[in-house]
């Protein structure tokens, strides 16, 4: 649950878990009102609070190096950040790739193809071990932050292609209907095209989210201990090791990943049905 987070400070992690869960429920249950407000709190205020609380170093909270974070905490932080930033960034990339401006288009295509062309492992290695050599030595970026940026950019490139698929499925007549009302590019996209395009690609988006959630295991290789990494570390601890620790441990970790992924996919299916019955397509 906490990795090597100092025991005296673990309450901070607990607060984040509880707060996250409390906010997530009203966001996911359709009948609870004030969706917009909840979303702003969950995607705006909550991450900031989590950042200050977990990293500390101000308001009298002792600083906790991200190097000692671990376990489920790391898994959740990486997944949450990845999901939260890769979707908007992916949307922008997808729009850019279909832009009428050749420069924007080229930049987006190169970016997308580059990130899709390299394995995540390479990205993580590069971010962790190589990047420091290229940056000036007084330019210290936190190890976890580097990994997070790598994961976000990587996931955004995949997301961009999923979103682009949705954009392509929207008929020209919808663009024309919006244009004729004088909506302008951003309002046309934001109010007319994207709401329809994203709805079409919910399965693809969720697929990417699930892949991202499970890919967090790869950070183990660059010595950041996610849930699975934490487990391996625990085996090495003689006070924990029994003949069955290995199996129960892995089974437990597997169950957590499965619960997360399956939860996401069932929820997506539920939302899809709900939206379709709304619209009678």
């Amino acid at each position: 649950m906490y990795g090597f987070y100092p025991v005296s400070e673990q309450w901070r992690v607990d607060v984040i878990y509880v707060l996250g869960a409390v906010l997530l429920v009203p966001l996911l249950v359709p009948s609870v009102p004030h969706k917009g407000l909840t979303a702003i709190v969950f995607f705006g205020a909550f991450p900031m609070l989590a950042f200050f609380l977990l990293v500390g170093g101000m308001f009298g909270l002792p600083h906790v190096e991200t190097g000692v974070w671990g376990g489920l905490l790391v898994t959740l932080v990486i997944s949450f950040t990845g999901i939260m930033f890769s979707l908007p960034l992916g949307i922008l990339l997808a729009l850019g790739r279909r832009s009428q401006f050749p420069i924007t288009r080229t930049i987006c295509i190169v970016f997308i193809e580059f990130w899709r062309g390299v394995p995540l492992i390479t990205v993580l290695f590069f971010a962790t071990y190589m990047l420091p050599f290229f940056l000036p030595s007084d330019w210290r970026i936190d190890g976890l932050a580097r990994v997070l940026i790598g994961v976000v950019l990587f996931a955004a490139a995949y997301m961009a292609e999923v979103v682009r698929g949705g954009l392509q499925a929207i008929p020209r007549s919808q663009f024309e209907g919006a244009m004729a009302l004088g909506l302008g590019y951003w309002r046309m996209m934001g109010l007319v095209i994207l709401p329809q395009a994203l709805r079409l690609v919910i399965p693809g988006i969720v697929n990417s989210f699930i892949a991202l959630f499970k890919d967090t295991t790869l950070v183990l290789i660059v010595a950041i201990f996610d849930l699975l990494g934490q487990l391996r570390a625990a085996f090495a601890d003689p006070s924990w090791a029994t003949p069955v620790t290995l199996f129960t441990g892995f089974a437990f970790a597997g169950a957590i990943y499965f619960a997360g992924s399956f939860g996401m996919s069932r929820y997506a299916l539920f939302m899809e049905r709900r939206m379709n019955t709304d619209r009678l397509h």
Partner: protein
Amino acid sequence: MASDMRTTAHEVAIEIIGLHKWFGSFHVLREIDLKVMQGERIVICGPSGSGKSTLLRCINRIEDWQRGRVIVDGTELTNDLKTIDEVRGEVGMVFQQFNLFPHLTALENCTLAPIWVRKMPKSEADELARHYLSRVRIPEQADKYPAQLSGGQQQRVAIARALCMQPKIMLFDEPTSALDPEMVKEVLDTIVGLALDGMTMVVVSHEMGFARQVASRMVLMDAGQIIEVNEPEAFFSHPQHERTKLFLGQILR
């Protein structure tokens, strides 16, 4: 009836000068000149592929062109996006396939542009939308999604949606040709109602009875050119061009 709807103002609403357009190497519009006065109702007809829709779509610059000028309500359309959106706010358009937004209700379809383009408060926009939905005689369908409406109802929502921007000019591109025969009348009646109120409009239509009823002038297009422009009386009883006779002969049988 045409005399009841006499043009009152004498200002130019739309001016098209020497317009040429190519799709690749295909010359769709050739040397189009047309002046529409405020309060005038122009009905354009002509064979399929003659460029009627393309011409109409140049008026709100959904299509661009290679040569010539288009001036709408005193504003010349250029590449400037701001000008284009301003003109689009003044010009309502109704499409053959309705082009309603399927993820929004009839009411939301109508309030979208007033809220986001005109910055109207939501309550005011709702009221405006309900007003125009009553005007097209479907106030009770406000909360339905387009897929839950008949073709005729959808087209009337599309008309209400365009009217909610309170445009000075309305463009109709074959508004009834995707409709079942029994729904044609309800949509045409709506458009006649607008004509009676003095709305400036350009309509592409092959409904000749309707054209006779509302048109101030008839336009015949063929192969990207305007062949004949005439008062409806003269246009139907003694057309001046062979091609007009031929076309009317085919369509009226």
